[in-house]
């Protein structure tokens, strides 16, 4: 554990030391900001997508956006607060199962009921698991939290497979579409824009949060939990709070996913999906919200394309691509355009005041 803390610290030094390797776009506090440009480009692309994509690709894109929402939840927890939640699928999947049961057993498919319900399921399960793993006398190590959450997700997967009420291995198929009054959200452009709208709102909320002073506290948490406890931060509470928020967002994503795909199955709470979301975020670049979105789009898009074109060997190619990115862009694809300084960001007062104040 000590080792991992130390290693994290070295990582930081190494990054700072190797700034020469990243000659691209090192933006200073007074330089131009790259991040908003990237965000804008992605948003415009997302808005236009259904106009240029074929039907089935719009449906695929909807799924990707839901997964991006899910990735956002993990990024918030890992990229900003340094909590390695290797079991994020637990919240995603339990919400999915929850709303699937609502639809199956109680015939509740009203969007105004099911989405809040999914969010609350995600929130509650994150609160319980987070409470156990993160609170307590000893601050918990990164490795402990990662294995703890992994095990949680693994156990939930086992439970889902074994429990008949949840459909066992087969999951719950044929979930009725989400509805609003008489309108049914079936897959297609309407669903796409609904999901995109939700993503944008959640994204903006997250953005607001991580750039606030609260975000600074999270950054402190990520760097050195013990240290900020000595400032008087309730470090473990902060962790539990952000973990819970992450769980709620994952829950929201999970319920959308369940209705969009029309079924839920044990993998959705299990290790496979948990690992997948970690990949999305690292691939895109953790610690930048847009990185999580970009990572999801690219990983999903590339595997979709590969499985079409290299049918027998696509997992191997995907593995190679992942490895190359991780090797040469350990900070994710976003680091092609974004410098270290802008990624970590600065939480001080408005840039204008800053420049005046700095001599």
């Amino acid at each position, binding site marked *: 554990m000590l080792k991992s803390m130390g290693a994290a610290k070295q990582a930081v030094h190494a990054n700072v030391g190797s700034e020469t390797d990243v000659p691209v776009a090192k933006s200073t506090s007074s330089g131009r900001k790259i991040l908003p440009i990237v965000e804008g480009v992605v948003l415009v692309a997302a808005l236009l997508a259904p106009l240029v994509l074929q039907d089935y690709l719009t449906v695929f894109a909807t799924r990707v956006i839901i997964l991006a929402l899910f990735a956002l939840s993990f990024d918030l927890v890992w990229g900003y607060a340094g909590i390695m939640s290797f079991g994020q699928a637990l919240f995603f999947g339990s919400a999915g199962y929850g709303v699937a049961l609502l639809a199956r057993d109680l015939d509740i498919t009203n969007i105004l009921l099911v989405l809040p319900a999914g969010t609350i399921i995600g929130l509650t399960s994150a609160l319980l698991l987070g409470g156990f793993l993160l609170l307590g006398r000893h601050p918990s190590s990164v490795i402990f939290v990662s294995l703890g959450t992994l095990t949680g997700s693994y156990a939930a997967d086992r439970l889902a497979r074994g429990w008949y009420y949840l459909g066992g291995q087969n999951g719950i198929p*044929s979930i009725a579409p989400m509805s609003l009054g008489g309108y049914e959200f079936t897959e297609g452009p309407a669903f796409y824009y609904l999901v995109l709208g939700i993503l944008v709102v959640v994204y903006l909320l997250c953005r607001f949060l991580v750039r606030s002073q609260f975000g600074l506290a999270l950054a402190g948490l990520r760097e050195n939990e013990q240290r900020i406890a000595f400032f008087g931060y309730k470090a473990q509470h902060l962790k539990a709070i952000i973990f819970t928020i992450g769980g709620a967002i994952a829950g929201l994503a999970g319920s959308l996913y369940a209705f969009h795909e029309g*079924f839920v*199955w044990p993998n959705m709470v299990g290790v496979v999906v948990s690992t997948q979301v970690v990949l999305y975020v690292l691939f895109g670049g953790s610690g930048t919200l847009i990185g999580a979105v970009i990572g999801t789009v690219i990983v999903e898009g590339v595997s979709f394309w590969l499985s079409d074109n290299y049918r027998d060997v696509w997992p191997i190619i995907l593995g190679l691509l992942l490895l190359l990115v991780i090797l040469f862009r350990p900070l994710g694809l976003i680091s092609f355009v974004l410098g270290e300084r802008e990624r970590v960001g600065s939480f001080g007062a408005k840039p204008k005041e800053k420049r005046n104040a700095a001599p």
Partner: protein
Amino acid sequence: ANAAEGPIKVGIATDLTGPIAYAGNADANVAKMVIKEINAAGGLLGRPLELYIEDTASNESVAVGNVRKLIQRDKVDMVLGGITSSMRNAIKDPIVARGKTLYIYPQLYEGKECTPYLFCTGPTPAQQCDEFIPWLIKNGGKKFALPSANYVWPHTLNVYARKVIESNGGEVVFEEYYPLDQVDFSSTVNRIISNKVDVVFNTVIPPGVGPFFKQLYEAGFLKSGGRLACVYYDENTLNINQAAEIEGLASCLDYFKVLTKENPFDAKIQAAYEKDFPGNFLFAAGSAATGTYRGLKLWEAAVKEAGKIDRESVAAALDHAKIAEGPGGPAEMVPGKRHCKMKMYTAVAKGGNYEIVARSNGLVDPKEC
């Protein structure tokens, strides 16, 4: 949305990658073989067939995306595929309810799938147990153990098997479920030995089944006259253990390769398959290859009868479709049930090969829906 002209599009969605890729690839090969054959004979309704194959990758979410490709991009007229029940559940809705397409599921399974427009062409528990279990009691003994992997197929199959065992005067000593990837079975083996079980009716699946049989063997189960039984065991699974470790294992399926010795039609398709696909992916019943063959031929018969390719007409014809020749013999759909009658064979492993020891008198009823 089907074009009246141009080729008829057949969609295959199966596990080309992932842990059961050996089965998925065999199914895809069978489909290629059958489509080639039909096209060589002039196609269907005067139109050629075109094959669209997508990977389900043993990953339900990848699968759904790829199945949508089949339905929405390629606009196939029918989808055949899915091997595990969970995969069937994942893709059936996008195919049948949302995609408004016909779906054929080729694998032996636990039964109880009664979705409209979804046709099953593999064996059901009734077909695999009704004649097999009495044979086991006669050729093994009355005391059964049901060690099982913990998922839906064994659970449902065991309910049926237990009923058949008990109504034939047998006794179930224990029925126990294990996590799917459990690989140590010492306590199970011990219970089997100390309870003097006669027949181990196994539904443990790989990876557990190899070590399980080995441990049983090492504990002297076979030496003291015990009988192994496993209804998904085909030519592929024989290699999991050394021949001695599963000597005498009995299985009941719709096809075994040894049938080629007695059945010219089986010899013909087996030879055709091996010529086109000489690799590792065997034409075997446990991997749904026979169900795929049967499914495609039944569908061909239905299309011919309907004279049209729209879902309603084909489904109406498929409801009572028949083929005179298929792997293991003729097959026919049970009207209104969307399941298939077929011949069943009981085979026993001897020195690394199967020997047929019993066969059904005629076509066995699936007893579903």
